[in-house]
């Protein structure tokens, strides 16, 4: 739609992807600050964790993208470090952020599930803005669809990654809507959670489920697996695994807590 927001006289330009990640980051910081006032969490523990999570998420997303697309672009080590050049894969960010989160909470002796609940609404908001960035950039595009499909997107900007002048399923907006739905659900639920970790596990399960189905309409996937006669993308396999683990943990923790409010 608008991959480049503006160009300066010297030729440098601002890409809409990093800009939306920046806006998403700011929105997540504001949301987490508001939530800390409500829950009484300690900012001196949470802000450093948020900084580490952001760095881990961006580098993790960049590393997975470079691994997935190394045959097309033959990325070198320096290219992997140039995350601002574009090319991020969400699940890579999630994996490295999870490892960082586990190490940090263990080191600082923070409540693993309680702190995770604090981070869930800001994470959903961040993903929402990141996907709007995908929409503006024209990446993560959908398969070709009937031009009469009321929600069809047609990219015309020559800088967009998506095929031009073709009606495509609006997968980027579907991902953004999924993240927004998760945000609304966890935001409403957070004051009435029955056990620590409920918000996190509910948010992760719901987003993985929605993302699994949205991926069927996505066209730009390269890493594919044949599972039981069905072709699944790398993202779908990861979503399915995350959904299984998070829903299992949800059931276990709910049973252990007896469903009583905390």
């Amino acid at each position, binding site marked *: 739609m608008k991959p480049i927001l503006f160009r*300066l006289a010297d030729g*440098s*330009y*601002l*890409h809409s*992807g*990093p*800009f939306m*990640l*920046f806006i998403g*980051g*700011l929105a997540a*910081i504001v949301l987490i600050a508001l939530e800390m006032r409500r829950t009484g969490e*300690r*900012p*001196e523990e949470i*802000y*450093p964790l*948020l*900084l580490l999570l*952001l*760095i881990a998420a*961006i580098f993790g997303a960049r590393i997975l993208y470079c691994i997935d697309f190394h045959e097309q672009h033959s990325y070198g080590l320096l290219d992997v470090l140039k*995350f*601002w*050049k*574009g090319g991020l894969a969400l699940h890579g960010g999630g994996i490295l952020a999870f490892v960082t989160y586990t190490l940090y909470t263990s080191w600082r002796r923070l409540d693993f599930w309680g702190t995770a609940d604090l981070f869930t609404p800001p994470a959903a908001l961040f993903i929402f803005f990141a996907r709007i960035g995908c929409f503006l950039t024209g990446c993560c595009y959908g398969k070709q669809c009937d031009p009469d499909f009321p929600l069809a997107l047609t990219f015309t900007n020559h800088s967009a990654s998506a095929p031009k002048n073709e009606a495509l399923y609006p997968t980027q907006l579907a991902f953004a809507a999924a993240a927004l739905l998760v945000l609304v659900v966890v935001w409403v639920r957070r004051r009435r959670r029955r056990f620590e970790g409920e918000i996190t596990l509910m948010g992760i399960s719901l987003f993985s489920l929605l993302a699994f189905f949205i991926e069927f309409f996505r066209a730009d996937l390269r890493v594919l697996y044949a599972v039981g006669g069905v072709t699944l993308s790398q993202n779908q396999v990861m979503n399915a695994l995350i959904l299984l683990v998070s829903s299992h943990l949800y059931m276990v923790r709910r049973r252990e807590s007896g469903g009583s409010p905390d």
Partner: protein
Amino acid sequence: MDLNLLLYLLLFLLLLGLSVYSIVRKRLDEHGIRDEPASSGGPTTDPEGRSGDTGG
């Protein structure tokens, strides 16, 4: 400098600033160095329960 990199750096620096500020503030609180604000906001009330509102 690349504008896209600049945006990422701004975000990192903002979070770094918030982290350092919150840690320093905590340390000052622990040592009783930082002055507490005179009022925590909201309507003021004296020990006898009278409102600080000067109206009426």
